[in-house]
């Protein structure tokens, strides 16, 4: 099928146009259009996956003018990323159907049916830019294109918070929105400066040409700038301070997507820095590993101290992203494979966790976890989802997290085994795993077991509607399936990083 990858980028955009132009009273229709378009792109990606297995990588070139062309590449690295992200987008779109309704009830209770459908329309219009942006970042081969898609991804969430759907009162929303903008733009600008610097050296913005930078003295600065820009997105200490705010104040249906937005910078790092410029990046390997390790442990402790359900998930994201970074920073085959696999596992688990937290906040009408208790009797499905997410994030077998963690720690050990530093590594690794285990399970036990606490709101407590829970179950199943049968994805990733 021609234009396979292009469609994955354009179809969501087209669907966004369709949503904008459709008039309807029913907000769910817009959701339906979104989901349908994303299903279509998923089918495309699966087809691309099959083609990848048989033919090797898929490369599409669209010339838009002299010297300007949009190239899209699907290989072992980008396709799993694109596929899993697409799946999560579908799941979250289903989840959003009811969730947006609820948000509108809360924020704009006096709205009439027409206005409500308007809000639905705006939501799904904005929503569809996310998958487009993600696909663009995943499949682009041109650095400027990557930059543009990343910027796109920064601005859209900003609109989400500032404009319509965020939490908190107007003043805090405004500040958080500005924070999101500032940090996103700061990171992207550093990235831009870095690639412009690279352009001055090799005269091209194509990723495929990047290896030409190898060995030059300026490459260090190029790499440093790009890395720092990505590090702001990846929430590595000390550039992580935006994450607890932004993630917590977002409407929860988007929160899963924001986790992807932060984490996809890891993919960009692999694609742009580690694969083309392996030798030059070695100098960053150990410092990055150390930073990632510190972030892992620090993020874990921070999460332990949280009482707000959404900030809890947000701080957890800080810790979990640095697991992927840790693996990638090892810069050997197993480590990068593991880091990328863990990235996929993390976004699955985090989407479930955030969404479950959203369900809890929505039902119990408080964000304070201390006021939740004994909810197992009323919301058993939600409890199962939370603990499934806990399993995935704590990287216990047989989830995908375990496979990812096994691989990236193996890679990290291979990197440092000649070093006494290895012992510190082991200790930090075990510690961070334990902390994750503790905070997810402890929070889950506190929320779902124990005596039933009276809820402040007058909302009856029961399980969310199926359109909210089934997509999350599907995500959990996928994570478990990947844990039991990781070979296909691992093989794909392996072919991509074989050069390391």
């Amino acid at each position, binding site marked *: 099928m021609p234009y396979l990858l292009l469609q994955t980028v354009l179809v969501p955009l087209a669907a966004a146009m369709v949503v904008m132009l459709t008039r309807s009273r029913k907000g769910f229709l817009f959701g339906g259009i979104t989901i349908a378009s994303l299903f279509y792109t998923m089918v495309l990606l699966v087809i691309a996956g099959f083609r990848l297995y048989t033919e090797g990588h898929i490369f599409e070139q669209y010339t838009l003018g002299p010297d300007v062309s949009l190239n899209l590449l699907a290989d072992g690295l980008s396709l799993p990323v694109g596929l899993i992200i697409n799946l999560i987008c579908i799941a979250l779109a289903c989840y959003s159907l009811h969730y947006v309704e609820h948000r509108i009830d809360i924020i704009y209770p006096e709205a009439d049916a027409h206005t409500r459908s308007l809000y639905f329309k705006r939501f799904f219009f904005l929503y569809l830019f996310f998958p487009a942006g993600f696909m663009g970042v995943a499949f682009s081969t041109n650095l400027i294109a990557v930059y543009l898609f990343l910027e796109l991804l920064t601005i859209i969430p900003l609109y989400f918070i500032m404009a319509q759907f965020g939490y908190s009162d107007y003043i805090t929303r405004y500040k958080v929105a500005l*924070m999101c903008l500032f940090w996103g733009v700061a990171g992207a600008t550093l990235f831009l*400066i870095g690639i412009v*610097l690279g352009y*001055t050296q090799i005269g091209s913005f194509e990723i495929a040409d990047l290896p030409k930078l190898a060995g030059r003295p*300026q490459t260090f*600065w190029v790499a440093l700038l790009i890395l720092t820009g990505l590090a702001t997105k990846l929430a590595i200490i*000390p550039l*992580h*301070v*935006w994450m*607890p705010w932004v993630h917590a104040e977002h409407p929860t249906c988007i929160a899963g997507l924001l986790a992807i937005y932060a984490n996809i910078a890891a993919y960009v790092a692999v694609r742009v820095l580690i694969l083309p410029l392996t030798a030059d990046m070695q100098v960053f390997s150990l410092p990055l590993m150390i930073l990632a390790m510190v972030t892992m442990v*620090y993020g874990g*402790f*921070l*999460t*332990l*101290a949280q009482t707000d359900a959404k900030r809890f998930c947000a701080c957890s994201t800080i810790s979990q992203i640095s697991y992927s970074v840790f693996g990638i920073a090892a810069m050997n085959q197993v480590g990068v494979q593991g880091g990328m696999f863990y990235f996929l596992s993390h976004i699955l688990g985090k989407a479930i966790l955030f969404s479950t937290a959203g369900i809890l906040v929505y039902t119990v009408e408080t964000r304070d976890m201390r006021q939740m208790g004994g909810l197992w009797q009323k919301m058993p499905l939600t409890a199962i989802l939370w603990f499934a997410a806990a399993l995935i994030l704590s990287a216990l077998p047989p989830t995908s997290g375990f496979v990812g963690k096994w691989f990236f720690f193996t890679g990290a*050990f291979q990197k440092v*085994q000649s070093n006494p530093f290895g012992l510190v590594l082991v200790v930090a690794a075990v510690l961070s795993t334990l902390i994750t285990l503790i905070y997810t399970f402890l929070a889950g036990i506190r929320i779902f077991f124990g005596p039933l606490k009276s809820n402040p709101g007058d909302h009856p407590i029961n399980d969310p509607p199926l359109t909210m829970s089934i997509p999350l179950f599907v995500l959990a199943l996928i994570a478990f399936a990947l844990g039991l049968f990781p070979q296909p994805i691992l093989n794909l990733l392996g072919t991509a990083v074989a050069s390391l």
Partner: protein
Amino acid sequence: MISTLPPAVIFIAGAVFVPIFRGRGKLLYLLALPVIAGMDLVYLPTGQSSATTFLDYSLIFCRVDRLSLAFGYVFVLIAFIGTIYSLHVKDNLQHMAALCYAGGALGVTFSGDLFSLYLFWEIMALASVVLLLARRTEDSRKAAFRYFMWHFFGGLCLLAGIILFVITRGTTEFNYIGLTDSASLMIFIGFCLNAAVFPFHAWLPDAYPRATVTGAVFMSALTTKSAVYILARTFPGNDILLWAGAFMTCFPIFYAVIVNDMRRVLAYSLINQVGFMVCGIGIGSQLAINGVVAHAFCHIIYKALLFMSTGAVLHMTGKIRGTDLGGLYKTMPFTAVCCMVGAASISAFPLFSGFVSKSLTVAAVAESHHVIVWFMLLFASAGVFHHAGIKVPFFVFFGHDSGIRSKEPPINMRIAMGMAAFICIFLGVYPAPLYQILPYPVDFHPYTAFHVVGMLQLLMFGALAFTMLILSGFYPAEQRAVNLDTDWFIRLPGRAFVRFCHKPLQAIAEVATGWAKSTVAAFKSAPSRSVEIEKRMDWIFHTLLVGLPERVSQVVQPLKTEKSELSWNVTYILIPFILLLLAILFVFK
């Protein structure tokens, strides 16, 4: 990577989830675990599997051949019986410890390399210490401490030996080791301690009588027999073991005669029986190893049966000393019968399991023409009947009436005892299934007229001696006393040493406790401290940095002219930016 599931994992991982279950569910879960492990065992592929590499060394978790499988079967079986026996226990910790203990023993049995062996060895030690502590009396706490010290020492020897071994031979895989250098000597000592070889045996009669009623069943089966297995694999044919084993069969029976606590009698008799096995390992021929395995299999069952029946008495009456008991057959006939079945088995009475297994070892000794050893073993066989076959049932259930009228133990204990008794009789009458799982082909027929009559003569005339001595009043009466053993060398000097070192030791202990407390406090405070750190960083970026333009403009403010502020501020910001851009473009050209 991990293709087959080591049965040890089923027990150890299963132990973690015990507290989740309650009531009937917990009982079912506890019983299901050995069953699942048994099924896993049946489907294990022979040879090495479940291997993984760790830092250039291979870890092999499933080394399956006839030797390890035989022990694997009996360990799972006794785990099942022991679990049934302990179903009434409400203390989750005991269940978890027993499961980990069984898992550790299985892990030791199937390990193919020294690292995993050491791991499971230590798991066994820890779990058995927990089982000792679970009794929660002052006495057992002290015994647990001594037990821990003994096994810690053994574990250190083993570890030192393993490290030396790996350094000198460059591999962690092991099969036959043999006493060749200091590494193998250290490993040998480590193994011998767990097998209660003299002089490293004193922990056994010290600790086993002080374990819980149900814990003793597990302890009697697992530590010593897994050590027997590992010795059979690594040091067969060593003459030291031949003599050590022969000595081990003889000296405990003297102690067993004069000891009062019935479970201590059984503990000494355990050393005696393990002595047979160690002796068989020392011979190392196929018949001898067959004998060792058969004997271990049967011994686990009938020793557990004996511990179970005496444990049942302890459970129902609260007493276990011969001086306090007697005449219990009147109200606990089932327990009495089970005890007698166990006693008959351990004495190697024909028609019981001991007869078909112990004789393999004795025959192997005879075949290798070690005359003195043979006499010693024969002496020990008569002696076993004496202290375990006669003394234990007699002084507990018969003998003088102590007036205690206790009821039969709970149904689960009776079922467990019944199962064990059934197996003892079944294998005694029909040993073929047992012979089939032995490592080497068996060409031994225990039921020859000569053998049966000979054994019966040995036993019955020993009984005659007992009868005559009792009737003549010459038999040593049960007395309340403590008997010295080799642990005297450790306990008394140990105490004196401790008193000598009390002050500095106490100081060290206080420092260590202080460290532990501060570490725990550090971890507890870590979340809140990280919140503060977060707030700080937040402040730096979002208040300080954001406030910088303000401060800059305040500084710049006086410099403005009549032109509007905005354009001047923008200019002031633009200038450095352009300079930066120029710097980048030109300096890095």
